[in-house]
């Protein structure tokens, strides 16, 4: 159950990154133009020209990097002054904003299949290679999680007739966010058919997307309370001062 506070001073949360997980682009299919030219034989059936090799498949394109979550905003400055305070201590939460959620990388593009070797006449010796499959595209780099917003220092001054500290306080930074997930690589293209009916090598497997960084933790504020005999008997002031250069 969430705790209810009398006063809540919290920096706004960072915006979450859009998360379209945009995939990479697949390698274009070679089509018939990727197949090797057929071999030829002369009128006596003798090998005239061996078949041509298949072309290698096209590479898949990597997915674009994901966006990062925004940083949480620091707790802001507030001063509350009460000339005559009476009652239970005021409960106060001073918190930085939470970091925004990161986007995740999309899947890399698939590699295109290699072309087939041309048809080889029986009289032609040697195995003609099909084209190697196209390498897959790398996955998208994950976005960074947003940093936690910083908390602020709290200073309480109260009059001489108050004998218990008039404020209970929770002072905390926001929550830093985790990075998104890196995108998976695409699928490599298949190797084309060699002239002996076997397959050429498939394309290389690309790597996963780069890793994002988690958001950084933020500053936790100090708490100072001080009875000031020069103030009115039941005077209370609460000052919330954001950190500078921390």
């Amino acid at each position, binding site marked *: 159950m969430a705790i209810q506070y009398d006063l809540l001073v919290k920096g706004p949360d960072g915006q979450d990154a859009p998360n379209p997980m945009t995939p990479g682009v697949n390698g274009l299919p070679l089509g018939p133009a990727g197949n090797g030219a057929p071999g030829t034989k002369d009128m006596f059936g003798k090998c005239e020209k061996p078949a041509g090799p298949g072309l290698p498949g096209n590479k898949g394109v990597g997915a674009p990097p994901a966006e990062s979550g925004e940083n949480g905003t620091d707790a802001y400055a507030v001063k509350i002054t009460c000339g005559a305070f009476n009652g239970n201590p005021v409960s106060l939460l001073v918190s930085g904003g939470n970091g925004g959620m990161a986007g995740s990388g999309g899947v890399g593009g698939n590699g295109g299949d290699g072309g087939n070797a041309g048809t080889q006449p029986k009289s032609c010796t040697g195995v003609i290679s099909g084209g190697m499959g196209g390498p897959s595209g790398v996955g998208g780099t994950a976005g960074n999680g947003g940093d936690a917003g910083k908390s602020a220092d709290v200073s309480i001054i109260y009059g001489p007739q108050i004998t218990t500290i008039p404020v209970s306080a929770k002072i905390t930074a926001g929550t830093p966010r985790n990075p998104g997930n890196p995108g998976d690589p695409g699928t490599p293209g298949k190797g084309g058919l060699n002239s002996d009916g076997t397959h050429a090598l498939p394309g290389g497997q690309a*790597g996963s*997307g780069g890793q994002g960084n988690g958001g950084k933790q933020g500053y936790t504020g100090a708490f100072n309370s001080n009875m000031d005999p020069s103030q009115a008997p039941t005077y209370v002031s609460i000052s919330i001062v954001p950190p500078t250069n921390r």
Partner: protein
Amino acid sequence: MPDNTVDNSGGNGADYSGYPAPGYPGDIDPTQAGQGTAASDNGKSCGTKAGTGKAGLTGNPGTGGRSGGNATSGNIINCKSQVMEGNYILTSNGGDGGGGQLGGIGGNGQIGGPGGAGSKHCDGGAQGPGGPGGVGGDGGIGGDAGNGGTIYFTYGDGSPTFQATCKPGKPGLGANGGAGGKGGQGNPTPGISGSGKNPGGGKAGIAGAVYVNGIKQ
């Protein structure tokens, strides 16, 4: 929230101990090394033998695991009054360092190149040696623990009671390195490469201190 409570403990660092290891770093492109030189005949006999295929390249190293985030420290709590009454719960603990992420697996070595083509009188060349697999990625180092804060409680008269806590956080643990990659197929095919290292945990935090009327408790 109970009355008269102050809590300004530090936050925990980002924890990657439960995260999966980084993904595969990708094959060497192209996946196979170059072909050896073709043989040629010298009349009715073999003139120049076919060359051995080129040696495969070493696979890509595994991706290093992310380091655990550093925690933040508890801050000062300073309460001062001529007359103090009531019960106080004062907490200024350090946050825990985050755990590191496992290192990623190393990439496969490149396949040894095909042997050079034979000729009528020469045999084809031998396949080249496969490339060694890439070394596994190092695990992520653990994040540093936060320090406990310092608590001052100063009063003249009255009979207040309080519980004060200012413990340091726990340092994050380092993660194990990833497994080495497989050797590329070839002649010969190398074995599995070495794993990545565990770089160890983060730094320990320091306990804070509690002072009542200037005397360390």
